[in-house]
């Protein structure tokens, strides 16, 4: 495919590497938040993290194997899934006069408190909407430049070492999420109150 001169395969891979690192950074920030405030993620929060790792995986495919529409497809499907979860959780808490336990409206504005502490004025599930919308927008803009799909010349793989490191970071992050999720949920459904599954972690 003809290179349009603006977004070469190498530049696209660097941008995907930056996107991957940004996504890993958000997940690391979620861990800092989790252990600072001692608030375990709820089921919907875990699902948003799952979508973030999947988005990072699509970016890692672009970095490792070269830009391809299928890899961007993985990013898009994951981002749409994450955005749906974020919208769902935001809508759950959008009305403070709605008691989610009884499913009835109330006169108390404390019957439907937001989940967790806000970060820079917004709760994490609202940041999720911003994040996944930005990912969808970025992928849409990236599709305007078809030169990135040009075949990479053999022997010019200048990102090789970075690509290996990026996938290694992704693997470590996904493994850490697996371990902490196992500690919180075991192999069954996750508790919605954010408590550890194992007795020796409760305290």
């Amino acid at each position, binding site marked *: 495919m003809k290179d349009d001169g603006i977004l070469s395969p190498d530049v696209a891979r660097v941008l995907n590497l930056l996107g991957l690192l940004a996504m890993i950074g958000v997940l690391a920030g979620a861990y800092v938040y989790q252990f600072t405030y001692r608030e375990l993620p709820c*089921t919907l929060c875990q699902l948003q993290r799952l979508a973030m790792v999947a988005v990072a*995986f699509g970016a890692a*495919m672009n970095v490792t*194997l070269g830009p391809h529409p299928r890899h961007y497809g993985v990013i898009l499907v994951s981002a749409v899934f994450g955005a749906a979860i974020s919208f769902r959780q935001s809508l759950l808490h959008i009305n403070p006069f709605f008691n989610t336990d009884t*499913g009835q409206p109330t006169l108390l504005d404390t019957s439907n408190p937001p989940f967790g502490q806000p970060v820079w004025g917004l709760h994490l599930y609202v940041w999720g909407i911003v994040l996944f919308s930005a990912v969808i927008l970025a992928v849409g803009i990236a599709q305007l430049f078809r030169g990135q799909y040009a075949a990479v010349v053999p022997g010019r793989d200048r990102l090789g070492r970075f690509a290996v490191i990026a*996938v290694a970071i992704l693997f470590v992050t*996904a493994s850490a999420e697996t371990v902490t999720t196992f500690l919180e949920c075991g192999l069954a*459904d996750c508790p919605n109150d954010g408590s550890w599954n194992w007795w020796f972690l409760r305290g």
Partner: protein
Amino acid sequence: MMTIAFALLAVASLLLWLRLRWSWVLVFAALILGIVIFVQDVDFATNLGIQL
């Protein structure tokens, strides 16, 4: 189930490390598990129905 979904992503990352192009299939399997968890989590009868 959530643990299994994350484990699928970890295995997919390992396969991508080995440059296996079909590793994305495991990611889609994890997302499908996520959709199942999401649908189970929503109490359609008493919650979503009233809100809509």
